[in-house]
């Protein structure tokens, strides 16, 4: 591949992710509104929020790390998007693979954790402690799923995973081949998105939005951007592993949005679990499902 082509891909992939992510945020809020018989926000509401937050005239920083934390949170996702293949663009997906992607997506969280840590606000610290706990909870089923998929396709290269699924049509999709893992993956997805019933680390009424408690202005704006990336990454990863990736942009976007509808519809029907209940929940059903699925993959 020519370097200029690569450079264009590397620029476009995060941009696409951001734009799609904005739409996904809007969809999430719309779904919530419709479920509550509300009208919901206007089309550009996610953008308004971000622009407003960046445009705040006075903003509070708790120190360099607080700022770097946001830089890492956004920058880490910008980097991670280039490892996630989309139709026609592979970026550097072949140089990393799914394990690298999985670990790279921890970088934004780590950055956020650093930034929050410096805020010296116990609500934030509790939030991070809960977020990490949640990660421990949902990553176990997630890792089982990833291991199953990697073994099934015999590779950790996401480009190969997509190619193999697209070669055989729907019958070779991960979701068809490994339905149990796909279901387990949905649980993990719910946890990954941090939506109800797993919304333990935001918990506005309890710990004042946890990690976000001291975030205002562009600090919060950065986190809104990060949320766009987060939704995009989770959904596209799921599409890549189980739904054959994107044959073309239309199919790709349709799948990506469709995948998100499930956790979002569930989210607004439930209250929040307590931390320990979330752990119990995620270590029980999806893990059992995943392990059974894994046994089928292995055989």
């Amino acid at each position: 591949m020519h370097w200029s082509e690569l450079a264009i891909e590397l620029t476009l992939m995060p941009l696409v992710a951001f734009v799609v992510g904005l739409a996904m945020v809007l969809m999430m809020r719309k779904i919530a509104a419709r479920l509550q018989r509300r009208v919901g926000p206007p089309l550009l509401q996610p953008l308004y929020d971000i622009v407003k937050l960046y445009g705040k005239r006075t903003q509070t920083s708790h120190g360099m790390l607080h700022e770097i934390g946001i830089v890492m949170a956004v920058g880490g996702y910008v980097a991670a998007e280039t490892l996630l293949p989309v139709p026609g663009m592979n970026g550097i997906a072949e140089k990393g693979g799914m394990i690298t992607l999985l670990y790279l997506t921890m970088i934004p969280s780590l950055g956020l954790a650093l930034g929050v840590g410096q805020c010296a606000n116990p609500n934030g610290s509790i939030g991070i402690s809960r977020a990490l706990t949640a990660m421990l909870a949902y990553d176990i089923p997630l890792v089982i799923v990833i291991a199953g998929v990697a073994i099934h396709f015999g590779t950790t290269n996401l480009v190969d995973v997509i190619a193999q699924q697209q070669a055989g049509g729907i019958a070779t999709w991960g979701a068809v081949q490994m339905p149990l893992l796909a279901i387990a993956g949905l649980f993990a997805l719910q946890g990954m998105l941090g939506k109800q019933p797993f919304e333990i680390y935001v918990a506005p009424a309890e710990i004042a939005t946890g990690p976000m408690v001291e975030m205002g202005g562009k600090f919060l704006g950065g986190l809104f951007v990060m949320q766009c990336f987060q939704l995009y990454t989770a959904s596209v990863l799921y599409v890549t592993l189980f739904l054959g990736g994107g044959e073309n942009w239309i199919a790709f976007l349709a799948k990506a949005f469709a995948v998100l509808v499930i956790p979002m519809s569930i989210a607004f029907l439930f209250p929040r679990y307590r931390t320990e209940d979330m752990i119990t929940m995620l270590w029980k059903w999806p893990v059992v499902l995943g392990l059974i699925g894994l046994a089928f993959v292995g055989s």
Partner: protein
Amino acid sequence: MTDTEQFPVRVEQPDRNGGNIFSRVFDELTAFCRSRSLFILHYCTGCGAIELPPAMTSRFDMERLGISPMVSPRQADILLITGYVSVKTLKRVMLTYEQMGSPKYVIGICSCTVNGGMYWQSYATAKKLNDYMPVDLYIAGCMPRPEAVITGLRQLMDKIAAGEANGWEDYYRRYDYYLGHQQRLFGETWQTPTDVIAEARHYGLFGPETLGDHTRLLEQHQAPLEALEMQLGLGAPDEVKA
């Protein structure tokens, strides 16, 4: 419905003619976004808070206007004072107000925030909110119905879009005035953790009335509030502790 115009709000109109066309368009755009995205810190000081849930939920749905509730003052744009403010509460209100990021807007809901309302004779309530902080909008009533709240919020949105909701700047520019009222109520040792004067300097919001007698009084006892900047501690090695 209450005519909010009869309660004057002190607003200083800055010069809006400077800058080139791009920055004006940009400012317009930002102002529009500001008006279309309002996060309410609903700080429930009194009975009026009960009118907010209907305003938020399916009947009136504030979110369609881009208004949503927020928890921490850092995140919020609007400070809703929803009822009578006792002296003790007002201290917290001040603390919270100063911690919010500007532009920030204060809305006083219920008559109590306007003139003390039915608590007029109480020794323990602050009667007139705009003595202590710039109030952008009052929604009178006891209590105002959700329709009034929504209408009020819409009016605020219009003011923001028009660049008129600048009470927060007034707080910086005339800090001494507000501080004086606060000191009168809370005592001479009154201090918040936010260094408003330093902020005014930092953001270029320093006005002729930012400093005055009251801020001098404040400086006499104010604990230092400089940020804990990173220190490398270079130089000669430490004198060894015995």
